[in-house]
């Protein structure tokens, strides 16, 4: 006989404003098998939880339904409360009265009726719940960090310094990411490379870190604690062990005019190149798509000049398989190209540049050695217009969100420009200034007050070229939307920060979710900001959404601490929501006939073949068997099993059937 306890939460007024909670509790009280039914203001509060705990004990409850918010929010809370009262936590279910009912419907009988249905359906389910016990699996104590920007560097170092192994994979020939491209950083204006480079070197030298640059994650299989990563090490065409990084090869390369990625196309590189002087590892790679030898079979100048004889034209991509316990994704972001903006000429005008390009122009290591020069003719621009929110916060462009860093770096750009070109004029067109952060507001005020940057609140409608000048036409909304037209020498667009190329396909490889803009989705925006919905995979930095360096670094450390926490256990406890193959009395042993369709359906290779033998060792039959360590509980096999011999704990056939029957009876 079931003795189910039903607990209806008002969630303050979140639920009770539209649902008659008292009526729900009362109606449920008369349902067969319900031994206890109450409503309460805040079920998740401490008194609320103790209400549940004491009811379990006093009323000898055999199951609990908490009708409150989404189980994705508080299921663990209430299951824990049940466990504390010695009720198996898997005998607790949550009805979602807030997100699925009160918040989406108006007050009325229909809403209360729906609430009653939602709860009673779960009462019928929980009656059929079985006590389940967590599954223990071993943990491989190696972390995979994907992306070698500041987030990846920080996460890798934190994990490695805690004594755990790290594999760091970077797509480019060097780690460093966008931060290595920056000039100075706000709000302190310290040199980006000065603070980053030592950390890059530290990565290279840390014995706990295995660094794969020019490499990409090919696939990830398995599950938390027990992933297997396949990493493609792209052929660098250089034997890294022999290469001394002397740079002779790059000098020898006859191809010189390849736009440098690092310098955002403002500088050039060769077909064999080191992306930038401080690169880690500081060893060149051959860009096979541009190399004369790979195109025509002739040249080999670099090889002939290499004193270490380290050039390897026959090198192949290498796939390495590594057992991994946890993953930190730090693949960062990208910025929209100027060609995305029709009103600003689709990237047609050379002197309309992105913020990142301007960083390179400002950078002492950049193509102009830190002098601000126009890309078109190399002259020093006397009038620069900075345009904030280029693309960002613009639904018409499909980018509704704020890119977060632009206000600050635009202020920085204007300021640095003024520092370098004292007689220059800097104009900033902005929508709003978002300078929340320690020292941020002060920083941008300084740009206005000390460096006399002209801030104009308004949008730019069009930029076109006339007589070698860029005509920037816009409106000044503080002056009654009066049209302004500035003849600028240069325009810097703070183009939107967007998800990195390939983010979507990486997310699919990792089986983590992502949002409409292809930023990786965190498990919970507030409470689980660095976790994904896939256990064991964490996020840090701008791959989750645009963010600045301090935030990125703190997230990276947070993700690292999650990994370290995970690795602090020899074994990992997993939810027992797994499939099981039934066992019946002999002579059948199981109703499974061993067609093993489930095996081909299982994405986790969790289904094995098991022999059932007589005591004498004679094979009676082969049946399917679920490896509880591998099964993730999707239940796909269950729906396939023709004889219903395989069932999913926690979502068993009987449970879901009962839900449907109750709902419609």
């Amino acid at each position, binding site marked *: 006989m079931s003795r189910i306890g039903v607990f209806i939460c008002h969630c303050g007024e979140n639920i009770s404003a539209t649902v008659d909670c008292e009526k729900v509790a009362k109606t449920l009280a008369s349902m067969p098998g319900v031994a206890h039914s109450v409503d309460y203001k805040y079920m998740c509060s401490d008194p609320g939880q103790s209400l549940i705990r004491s009811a379990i004990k006093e009323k000898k409850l055999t199951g609990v339904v908490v009708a409150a918010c989404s189980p994705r929010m508080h299921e663990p809370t209430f299951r824990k409360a049940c466990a504390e009262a010695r009720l198996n936590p898997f005998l607790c279910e949550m009805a979602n009265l807030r997100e699925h009912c009160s918040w989406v419907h108006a007050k009325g009988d229909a809403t209360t009726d729906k609430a009653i249905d939602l709860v009673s359906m779960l009462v019928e389910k929980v009656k059929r719940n079985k006590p389940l016990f967590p599954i223990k699996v071993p943990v491989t104590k190696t972390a995979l960090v994907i992306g070698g920007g500041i987030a990846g560097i920080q996460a890798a170092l934190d994990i490695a310094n805690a004594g755990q192994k790290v594999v760091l994979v970077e797509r480019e020939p060097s780690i460093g990411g966008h931060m290595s491209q920056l000039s100075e950083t706000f709000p302190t204006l310290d040199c980006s490379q000065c603070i980053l480079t030592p950390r890059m070197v530290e990565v290279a030298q840390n014995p706990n870190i295995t660094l794969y640059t020019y490499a990409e994650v090919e696939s990830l299989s398995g599950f938390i604690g027990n992933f297997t990563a396949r990493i493609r090490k792209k052929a660098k065409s250089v034997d890294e062990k022999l290469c001394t990084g002397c740079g002779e090869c790059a000098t020898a390369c006859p191809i010189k005019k390849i736009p440098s990625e690092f310098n955002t196309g403002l500088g050039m590189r060769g077909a064999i190149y080191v992306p930038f002087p401080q690169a880690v590892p500081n060893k060149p790679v051959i860009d096979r798509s541009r190399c004369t030898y790979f195109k025509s079979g002739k040249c080999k100048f670099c090889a002939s000049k290499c004193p270490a004889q380290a050039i390897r034209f026959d090198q192949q991509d290498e796939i390495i398989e590594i057992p991994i316990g946890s993953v930190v994704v730090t693949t960062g972001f990208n910025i929209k190209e100027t060609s995305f903006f029709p009103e600003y000429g689709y990237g047609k005008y050379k002197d309309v540049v992105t913020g990142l390009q301007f960083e390179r122009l400002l950078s002492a290591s950049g193509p102009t050695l830190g002098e601000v020069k126009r890309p078109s003719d190399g002259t020093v621009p006397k009038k620069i217009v900075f345009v904030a929110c280029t693309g960002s916060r613009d639904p018409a462009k499909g980018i509704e969100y704020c890119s977060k860093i632009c206000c600050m770096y635009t202020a920085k750009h204007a300021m640095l420009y003024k520092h370098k070109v004292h007689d220059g004029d800097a104009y900033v067109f902005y929508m709003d200034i978002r300078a929340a952060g320690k020292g941020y507001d002060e920083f941008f005020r300084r740009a206005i007050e000390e460096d006399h940057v002209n801030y104009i609140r308004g949008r730019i409608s069009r930029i076109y070229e006339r007589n070698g000048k860029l005509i920037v036409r816009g409106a000044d909304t503080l002056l009654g939307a009066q049209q302004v037209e500035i003849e600028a020498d240069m325009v810097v667009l703070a183009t939107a920060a967007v998800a990195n190329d390939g983010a979507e396909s990486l997310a699919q490889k990792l089986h983590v979710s992502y949002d409409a803009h292809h930023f990786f989705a965190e498990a919970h925006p507030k409470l689980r900001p660095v976790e994904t919905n896939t256990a064991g995979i964490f996020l840090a930095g701008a791959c989750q959404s645009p963010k600045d360096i301090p935030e990125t670094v703190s997230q990276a450390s947070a993700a690292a601490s999650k990994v370290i926490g995970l690795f602090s256990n020899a074994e990992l406890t997993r939810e027992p929501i797994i499939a099981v193959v039934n066992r019946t009395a002999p002579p*059948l042993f199981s109703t499974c006939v061993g067609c093993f369709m489930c095996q081909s359906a299982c994405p986790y290779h969790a289904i094995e073949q098991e022999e059932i033998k007589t005591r004498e060792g004679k094979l009676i039959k082969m049946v399917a068997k679920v490896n509880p360590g591998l099964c993730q509980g999707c239940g796909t096999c269950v729906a396939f099993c023709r004889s219903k011999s395989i069932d999913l704990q926690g979502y068993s056939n009987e449970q879901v059937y009962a839900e449907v029957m109750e709902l419609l009876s």
Partner: protein
Amino acid sequence: MSMQQRVIQHENLLKFLGEIISSGKQLYAPQKKAEKTYFLPASDVHSIVFDYIQTAESPKELLFPKTERMLSYEQVDGKLKMIDHAEGEIFPERVLFGSHPCDAVALKTLTDFFRHDVPDAFTQKRQDSLTVISVSCIKADDNCFCTSVGTSPGDTEGSDILLTPIGNAKYYVEVMTEKGQSLFAAHEKYFENSDIISKDKYLTKMSEVFSSSEVTARLSKAFDHPIWSDASLRCLGCGACAYVCPVCSCFDIQDEGTDKKGDRLRCWDSCGFSLFTLHTSGHNPRKNQSDRWRQRVMHKFSYMPERYELLGCVGCGRCSRACPADMNIKEQLKEITEKIEG
């Protein structure tokens, strides 16, 4: 029941049947559907088929439907209310036309079985409201063996009225029971007086292939005979034989619905199914197909005669026709009399 001898012309027979329909009774008569003949409710006498050997399904549905609602229940104001369909249900007046004598005997066997000891109201009430007009057989096929199981092409048992075709689109009429008499009386105008006719010469000739009493006698010692496993090798264990059999009456009781409202149903079942006797523990008293085949034969030819003095087979041959594996009962019974010592 001794009666004036009558005959009926074919066209009058159609009128007679038509009048039964228009009188509001449900007339079940053989009709074609796809390639086979079935007893179906007739709304037009011209759709009735006369030239057939055997229907695919037996008429037992008229007494023992494949799904019968025995009980309904409903929660009303927190109280369980039962609706008893044996009491409340009106069992409509029905006339079955065109059953052959074997089927009529089967209907009687079925009635007797369900009436035995603890009377079953459902079959009884259906029987009470059913009048059977059978038609003697003037042809038969290889699967028929009525004479071997004690009935015959002109057997009157179980029929309320028996018609025997005597050529020239005429039927010799025998009214056997009060039910038959009252139906006859209501439509007497269609019948003509006649001299006493010996119907035998019109009937199909069926030689006795075996003797059922001999089968019964042999079976009493045959439980462990190898014949069962040999014979049943090709048996697929479906229920086709039992479901087309006019006598087979095993059933299952099933509830449908929720705790709030639903029905208790009686559904056909078959001793040929492996799950029929399976215990929850996994133990199965009849775990081999041969056990189940034996049960089928034993039940009809040994247990039923012994317990009810009824033979569980009327020789209609439907099971042989229906069997996808050609388990021919006539052949098997003959073999029993040949292979098993008396």
